[in-house]
């Protein structure tokens, strides 16, 4: 029987190896996504993109709540949203708290049963504090509230005072705002700048298309979800084409390495600035402190971007997650975020708060960011963003970029854009 023992051991060993391999795999897959509770210690995983001003707040909250640890995970904008979507389908692995942007809220609002209905946790008491449209945008058709608003866009134009000076243009924000009462004047200013310096004026044509589009009453889709290319999109597209024809665009893809390099290598002098862009500028080019300033944008108000905090239902610590989110949206923290990264709160009462109104941003030559963005935000008439807004925007941006690459003539571009947008709307 000794022989049998050896065989059995061998078979057993093979089985054990296989079992270990399987266990090893699954163990690894779960790691990193867990929100484990170890000895009363709870780790809350928070997913977002860019800089939402949470670093200082995290330390503060952890100090007040010794049993809570907060893991911040900042990733790429599209990747974070897609990751959340995959985890919702898979049924596990989503973070405890996930930021969702305006461009994706429609998609997730349609899957409201995957998220904690924050009204059940008592969020409805905040409804009156929020901008009405901001509150409704994260609400499902049957009234489930999936997110609490963090910031809204608002629009302004950031510019480099040192580069303007070198081109013989005025540098103080009053006179700069007067340079461009409308988009045509803006492009003329760009021509002057490019002619004098030989350098490009704006970062990309798509970053003109988007703000102009957001200033229009109707975007890609109307409330009935029909594509409306001749209105807002056409207005934005025309400005983008004019800029390309004038040769003032550096054609750098936004939020990509080359774009970030463009900041450092002075490849452009102006940038359309929603409030949240301020944080990106100061993180990307920290040594340009005092070289930036903020002027009015041609064509006035408009909203570009803005996010919500959501809590996926599959999390293990939804109550603790809600407590943290609730803490984050309190005026004190919202003002703190506004001061550090510039994100404009979505609770209008704060626009009258002296802490916001009197705040001057040192990085941007002491620009009164509170006054600038609060005045645009209050007059905002937000657009309806259709279900297919995301893919449609990408399709039209692709056409603009093809013109920028010289692969398509600007005269033929609009027909192409309409064709591609229609395709995207049916995708």
């Amino acid at each position, binding site marked *: 029987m000794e022989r049998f023992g050896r065989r059995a051991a061998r078979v057993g060993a*093979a089985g054990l190896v296989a079992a270990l391999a399987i266990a090893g795999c699954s163990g690894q897959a779960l790691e990193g996504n867990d929100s484990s509770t170890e000895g009363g210690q709870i780790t809350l995983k928070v997913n977002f993109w860019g800089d939402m001003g949470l670093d200082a707040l995290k330390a503060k909250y952890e100090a007040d709540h010794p049993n809570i640890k907060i893991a911040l995970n900042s990733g790429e*904008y599209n990747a974070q949203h897609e990751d959340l979507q995959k985890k919702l389908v898979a049924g596990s692995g989503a973070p405890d708290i996930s930021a969702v942007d305006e461009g994706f809220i429609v998609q997730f609002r*349609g899957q409201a049963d995957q998220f904690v209905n924050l009204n059940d946790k008592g969020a409805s008491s905040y409804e009156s504090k929020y901008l009405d449209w901001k509150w409704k945008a994260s609400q499902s058709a049957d009234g489930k509230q999936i997110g609490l608003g963090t910031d809204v866009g608002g629009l302004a134009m950031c510019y480099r005072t040192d580069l303007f000076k070198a081109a013989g243009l005025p540098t103080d924000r009053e006179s700069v705002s007067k340079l461009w009462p409308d988009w045509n004047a803006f492009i003329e200013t760009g021509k002057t700048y490019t002619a004098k310096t030989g350098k490009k004026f704006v970062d990309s044509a798509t970053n003109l298309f988007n703000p102009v589009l957001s200033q229009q009453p109707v975007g890609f889709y109307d409330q009935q979800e029909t594509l409306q290319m001749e209105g807002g999109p056409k207005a934005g597209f025309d400005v983008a084409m004019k800029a390309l024809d004038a040769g003032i665009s550096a054609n750098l893809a936004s939020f*990509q390495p080359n774009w970030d390099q463009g900041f450092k290598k002075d490849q452009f002098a102006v940038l359309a600035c929603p409030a949240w862009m301020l944080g990106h500028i100061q993180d990307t080019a920290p040594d340009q402190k005092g070289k930036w300033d903020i002027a009015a944008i041609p064509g006035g108000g408009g909203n570009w971007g803005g996010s919500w905090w959501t809590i996926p239902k599959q999390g293990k610590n939804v109550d603790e997650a809600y407590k943290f989110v609730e803490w984050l949206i309190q005026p004190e923290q919202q003002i703190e975020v506004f001061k550090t990264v510039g994100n404009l709160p979505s609770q209008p009462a704060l626009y009258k708060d002296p802490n916001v109104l009197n705040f001057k941003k040192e990085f941007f030559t002491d620009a009164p960011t509170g006054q600038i963005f609060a005045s645009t935000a209050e007059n905002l008439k937000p657009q309806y963003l259709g279900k297919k807004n995301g893919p449609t925007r990408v399709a039209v941006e692709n056409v603009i970029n093809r013109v920028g690459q*010289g692969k398509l003539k600007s005269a033929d571009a609009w027909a192409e854009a309409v064709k591609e947008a229609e395709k995207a709307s049916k995708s």
Partner: protein
Amino acid sequence: MSLTDVRVVRTEEPKHAPPNRAKFWLYRFDTKTVPYLLIAPFFVLFAIFGLFPIIFNGVVALRHWRLDDPTLTGWAGMENFTKLASDTDFWDALVNTFGIFILSTVPQLLIALMLANLLNRKLRGATFWRIGVLLPYVTPVAASTLVFAVFFSRDYGLANWMLSLVGFGEEQPLDWRADTWSSWIAIATMVNWKWIGYNALLYLSAMQAIPKDVYEAAAVDGAGPWRQLWRITVPMIQPVVLFTVILSTIGGLQLFNEPMLFDENPALANGGYDHQWRTIAQLIYKVGWRDLNLGYAAAMSWALFLIILIVAAINALATRRLGGGK
């Protein structure tokens, strides 16, 4: 004749004593069952992580499954596949995939063959060179592709700098991502860089099994090194050539990482603003995770699976002919 047959014969060898009954069953168990138990773990894992997803994918392909519209669900029949037939995006992506596949596979295998032939000679520090060619293969594809993405960038890329040394594109730097041909070359370069060394080592190991006297005889008959390579080496390592051809066919048609990360904004899965280098694998990703149409993406996956089977079969046949085999 299988492995188990050989063993059975051996158990019958001691014919002089009647077999102990318990021992006999143990022998039978050992020779008939244990081999299957030993190879079972792979097949169990394959069934769970390989076969099941393929079949499940086929089921999904026959259904509606849209994440942005939970009401649209249920059987779709062949609808996803008929849609595929008239979808220009799919056929464009197929052309791109084949273009990049040919640009990467053909030079890759040819250069690997030459390289292996060189490495097969007497070299000083042979091990160093042999391990050296494997280094690109060890580098994670995401890391190397990110470096290549910078290498081929328009404004401050190394590739354009080298071109400018020979006086090309000094006024208007080449925008590698803008044109179809340049983007294909850039991606094929990444693929070639990664796999040439790997294939060269496979060829080398096969070449070392060729007896030296064959070459001596050929040399006596007056065959030069070039003729020896094509008339002796290639036919004699033909099984390995076949293996590499099939392997690179599968890899080439599933190309995903390189085109994805070559994009200026990878998460969009654009494959260029005119989709000029979007491969099928990228299109599947885009349809599934950006358009949220999982049913249609599954149908595309199945179509890709069939295309790979067909192309691999054609390649295998052609290679067998080429090597002068039976």
